């Protein structure tokens, strides 16, 4: 059962009014323009024990994603494909109102939306990751630990997952005498495309990109759009209790494609240079 609840951070009315007034005149609290991202800092490969990892800092939001590759049974109905499992956990370190425990509906939604963006874009050529179709396939786990909440978890988590995957090194498994053997060799993951997630918050009549915690506390609605290298939309999610107009959705979609491509070029740079 899902029930609506009040915002978890108490933003004082003085600040809410200040934000609404600024945004109505095209400005934001931290001086950004409506289409501007906060400083984005990404470190690759910091968890050496993982097959791939990324530490993303988007403004004050910090997420660490790690990739672990094993073997296992394929998903039902997808016998010829490797299995991809994307999970996320908001750690209790992330904010004062987070309690330890199993993921709540917000966290589950977050993980599923991020997963959708990666899966539907076919970022990984999973058909290349089956060892014995129907029996044994590569199982790719991508786990995210959100360590500090600063707003816009959707994008920060998505960037962490995408970069951890894109820069991972996958062990080469072989079947010898009907058993799975790690040959000790490593390979690059079979990547088709780089999906990029872009999130907007509607505050009053304006849309702002990459909302901060304070902006999220006074937003009326939110929309996340993920595009692939061909400019196709592979995942969309409207969130929060309010509504969006048709114009707003169209405008968000247009900007998401453009910003998506800008970020994609930056990500591609990271995956080739490795740092």
């Amino acid at each position, binding site marked *: 059962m899902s029930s609506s609840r009040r915002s978890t951070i108490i933003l004082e009315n003085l600040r809410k009014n200040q934000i609404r007034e600024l945004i109505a005149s095209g400005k934001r609290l931290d001086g950004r323009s409506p289409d501007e991202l906060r400083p984005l800092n990404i470190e690759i490969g910091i*968890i050496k*024990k993982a097959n791939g990892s990324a530490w993303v800092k988007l403004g004050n939001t910090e997420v660490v994603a790690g990739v672990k590759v094993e073997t296992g049974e394929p998903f039902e109905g997808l016998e010829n494909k490797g299995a991809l499992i994307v999970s996320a956990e908001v750690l*209790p*370190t992330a904010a*004062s109102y987070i309690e330890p425990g199993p993921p709540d509906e917000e966290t589950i939604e977050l993980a599923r939306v991020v997963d959708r963006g990666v899966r539907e874009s076919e970022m990984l050529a999973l058909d290349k990751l089956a060892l014995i179709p129907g029996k044994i396939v590569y199982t790719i*786990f991508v*786990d995210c630990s959100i*360590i500090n909440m*600063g707003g816009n978890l959707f994008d920060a988590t998505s960037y962490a997952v995408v970069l951890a995957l894109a820069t991972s090194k996958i062990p080469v498994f072989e079947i010898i005498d009907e058993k799975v053997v790690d040959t000790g060799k490593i390979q690059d993951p079979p990547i088709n495309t780089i999906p990029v997630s872009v999130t907007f918050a509607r505050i009053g009549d304006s849309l702002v990109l990459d909302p901060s915690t304070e902006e999220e506390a006074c937003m009326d609605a939110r929309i996340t759009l993920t595009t692939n290298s061909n400019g196709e939309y592979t995942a969309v999610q409207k969130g929060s209790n309010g509504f969006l107009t048709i114009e707003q959705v169209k405008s968000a979609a247009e900007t998401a494609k453009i910003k998506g491509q800008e970020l994609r070029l930056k990500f591609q740079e990271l995956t080739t240079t490795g740092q």
Partner: protein
Amino acid sequence: MTQTRSLIDENGIRTDGRTGNQLRDIQIKVGVIKNADGSALIEFGKNKIIAAVYGPREVHPKHMALTDRCLLRCRYHMSPFSTDTRKNPAPSRREVEISKVIREALQPALMLEDYPRATIDVYIEVLQADGGSRCAGIAAASVALADAGINMRDLVSACAAGKVDDKIVLDINDTEDKEGGADMPVAFMPNHKQITLLQLDGKLNSEEFIACLNEGITGCMKVYEVQRSALMQKYFGNETELKE
């Protein structure tokens, strides 16, 4: 467990290139989690662990509060990508036990009677584990507690010693932990000289036990130097001396 292969070569060099009484490299950064009241990131060998403290703060649900002192809650948790094989995110029995012994290691240092009806929550998140993670976690948590401005009698330092190839060595790594003869984590209040955590996993005779304990305490004092300088660096920066 009884060792099966040699882990120290003929020159006294261990699997990671160290000598018997050498500590792994340690780095501590204070105040890394903006939202927390106090926090620290520790890199202890290959361990990468974050400790965050929220408190003193209100207890929810209210009936759990203690009337005469502060509640102390502690959680040690490993991210799924932190170990060699992927770990299920649900809390394991090992994590539950470690959470408890860590809480009991930190409690003697905290002046909980100063904050009745409140709680102090300590979260230790392991991003990468490589032997001695509970000790590294305690060292980071202790720094985070001081960073949060909680009244403390002392910091708590921690380090593990062990038996490898029948020799007592300092700060055992993951391989030595898995394959060696004994593993003894120790937590220690460096100024009050009191032991707040002590565990043994393995087999030691009387002499070995004392030698291992002493080695562990020596390790704790070395870890203390790193904790101290990390806190001084954050709070006092380059002003090492107060100008009178």
